[in-house]
């Protein structure tokens, strides 16, 4: 029941906003719908917390500690982003960047995107998971090209083609998975339900599952933005409207990684080896290194943080590849704190580039003097994302590092190198923007205070102390993932 409300609100909002998304009060409606989704997700989480995993809708939906935490995160961040988007899109509209049709489209697709992500998270059917992932891509493709600049259209096309091709590989993986399952379950949907699959994981054919994992890795790995499949990501994340950049970086990457982890559990069960984990570790490490060195060369502020997202997804992938309770715990925490921190950064970056009417970092200066919240918010976010204590990212990276030293000491130096380079690069680029005098081209705008402050508070809290319910929750999720 609660599941239907959770998904239905978004779907209804999609249709409603497709017609009235350009009205004066549409942003508020967008916020209310996202808020309702968030409330529903909290209820769902509470019932999972109390009663354990839920299977409903004839096995169509499956909610356990792992996906419900991501669902709550998705609903929460989509709500705060909707709040941010109200002020942000108002400025964009007043500057004539988006018209009536654009606003309707923007709001409708925003809700459809959230719906697709929640469906991907909550469904039990591996095939439907794929469909939802594809839907999430399709919903955001035209949002990336919303401004119709040459760069935006090019970025959207790249996003559409590369992700379409990538995710097609995942469908092939799904076919192979179903092939392996059909030998046990026979015809029908039963063979694609994750709960059934994980119950018989050790009876699935290991060769087929290994092959399937390669395809899943390439497919969902493209969506996670892992190097060398990351080409679309910096473009798509930098050319679209900033709220979309925020949810793409903060949420969609998580959902794609979620899909990959779900599959990895099955593959590990079938092959009784750590092969899949090693593949993920290599991809993760490569992403960390390539992305952190790419950070050094960036001139566009959103593009730079898009690379930072690749780096952090690399860290999370590396953590899940490592396996083991500590690394998995760290990975789960990392997905959470990265999501919160990166969206904070994108909120402030969005306002900063609106204040200067450019995304070129060389033209952005004096943010703290110009608008303390934006300036300090950006500094705060960068300090946090770079992995300084006492923020959440530090905790998760520390956990992953400890596990890495213990289980994969040869990988650890590279891991540390990547983090160090990213740290240096981010600070070198961000300091001049935050400090200094207010330049002539800076114009004051009305910024969204609430989401930035709420996120900052959460990140700080998560860094200093992990609430018991949250850590228990993570422990439940870890138990599901580590066998």
């Amino acid at each position: 029941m609660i599941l239907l409300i959770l998904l239905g609100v978004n779907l209804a909002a999609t249709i409603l906003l497709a017609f009235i998304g350009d009205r004066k009060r549409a942003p508020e409606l967008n916020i209310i719908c996202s808020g309702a989704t968030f409330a529903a997700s909290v209820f769902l989480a509470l019932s999972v917390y109390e009663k354990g995993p839920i299977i409903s809708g004839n096995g169509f939906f499956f909610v356990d500690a792992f996906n419900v935490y991501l669902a709550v995160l998705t609903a929460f961040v989509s709500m705060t982003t909707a709040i941010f988007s109200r002020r942000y899109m108002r400025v964009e509209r007043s500057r004539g960047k988006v018209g009536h049709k654009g606003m309707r489209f923007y709001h409708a697709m925003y809700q459809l995107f959230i719906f697709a992500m929640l469906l991907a998270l909550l469904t039990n059917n591996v095939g439907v998971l794929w469909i939802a992932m594809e839907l999430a891509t399709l919903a955001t493709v035209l949002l990336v090209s919303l401004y119709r600049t040459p760069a935006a259209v090019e970025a959207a096309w790249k996003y559409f083609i590369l992700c379409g091709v990538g995710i097609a590989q995942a469908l092939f993986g799904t076919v192979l998975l179903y092939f392996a399952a059909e030998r046990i379950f026979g015809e029908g949907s039963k063979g694609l339900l994750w709960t059934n699959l994980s119950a018989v994981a050790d009876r699935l054919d290991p060769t087929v599952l290994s092959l399937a994992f390669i395809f899943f890795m390439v497919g969902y790995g493209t969506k996670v933005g892992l190097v060398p499949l990351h080409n679309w990501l910096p473009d798509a994340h930098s050319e679209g409207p900033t709220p979309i950049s925020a949810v793409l970086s903060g949420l969609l990457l998580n959902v794609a990684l979620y899909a990959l982890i779900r599959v990895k559990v099955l593959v590990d069960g079938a092959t009784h080896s750590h092969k899949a984990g090693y593949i993920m570790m290599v991809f993760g490490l490569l992403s960390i290194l390539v992305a952190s060195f790419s950070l050094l060369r960036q001139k566009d502020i959103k593009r730079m943080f898009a690379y930072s997202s690749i780096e952090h997804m690399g860290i999370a992938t590396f953590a899940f590849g490592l396996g083991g309770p500590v690394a998995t715990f760290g990975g789960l925490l990392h997905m959470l704190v990265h999501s919160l921190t990166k969206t904070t950064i994108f909120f402030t970056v969005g306002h900063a580039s609106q204040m200067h009417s450019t995304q070129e970092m060389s033209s952005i200066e004096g943010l703290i003097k110009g608008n303390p919240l934006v300036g300090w918010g950006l500094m705060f976010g960068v300090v946090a994302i770079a992995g300084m204590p006492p923020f959440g990212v530090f905790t998760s990276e520390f956990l992953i590092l400890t596990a890495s030293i213990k289980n994969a000491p040869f990988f650890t130096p590279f891991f540390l190198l990547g983090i160090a380079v990213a740290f240096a690069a981010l600070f070198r680029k961000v300091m001049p923007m935050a400090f200094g005098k207010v330049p002539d081209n800076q114009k004051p705008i009305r910024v969204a205070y609430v989401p930035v402050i709420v996120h900052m508070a959460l990140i700080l809290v998560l860094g200093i102390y992990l609430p018991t319910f949250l850590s228990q929750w993570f422990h439940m999720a870890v138990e599901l993932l580590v066998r």
Partner: protein
Amino acid sequence: MNVSFAAQLNSVLAALILLTAFGLLAQRRIYGLLHIFALQGFFLSVSTAVVGYSAGLHHLYISALLTLTLKVIVLPYILYVLIHRLRIHKEVEEVVNIPTTMLIGIALVIYSYHLTAPIRELSDFITRSTLAVALATVMLGLLMMIIRKKAVTQIIGFLALENGLFFAATSATYGMPLVVELGVALDILIAAFIFGIFFFQIRTTFDTLDLKAMEKLKEEE
């Protein structure tokens, strides 16, 4: 129709699908591409129906019908209308070095055969051997998207790739569950509308559908 004849027929259809995949790689004219693509969809649909008949699975008929409407009628029609509206029906694409492309294509077919070998040994379906062709079709679609530089041809490559996926589903598992097939078809339909919009966006922004114009977003040195 006995089983061995169905298997033979299916092999022939698989070979024809492979042939159309190569045809797409070599064809320069836009209408030619469209026709080959429609033909591929038709073979796919017939093959699905044949498998459905020989295995006695009726949901495959629905899947075949779905393929027929979507891949043979709707998508080629949408593309046809788009091509006409955009006035690019006379364009001939410069395709360099077809022989090399073909050799790469052949290598991909062999590679697909190698990859699917373990599955062929496990399966006892009459269609098991066509899985290699399905994977090869996917790879050839990928190859086409890499070597072609026009928006429309890239899309046709993408759709051919999806054909390969459908074929894989039929040959490895006698089709995915219906809910998944329908969902995938829906996604493809949405994708079709999106690329339709895209063609116009690209055209109005760049004055051409040649993707060579899109070279702005690169890593600056």
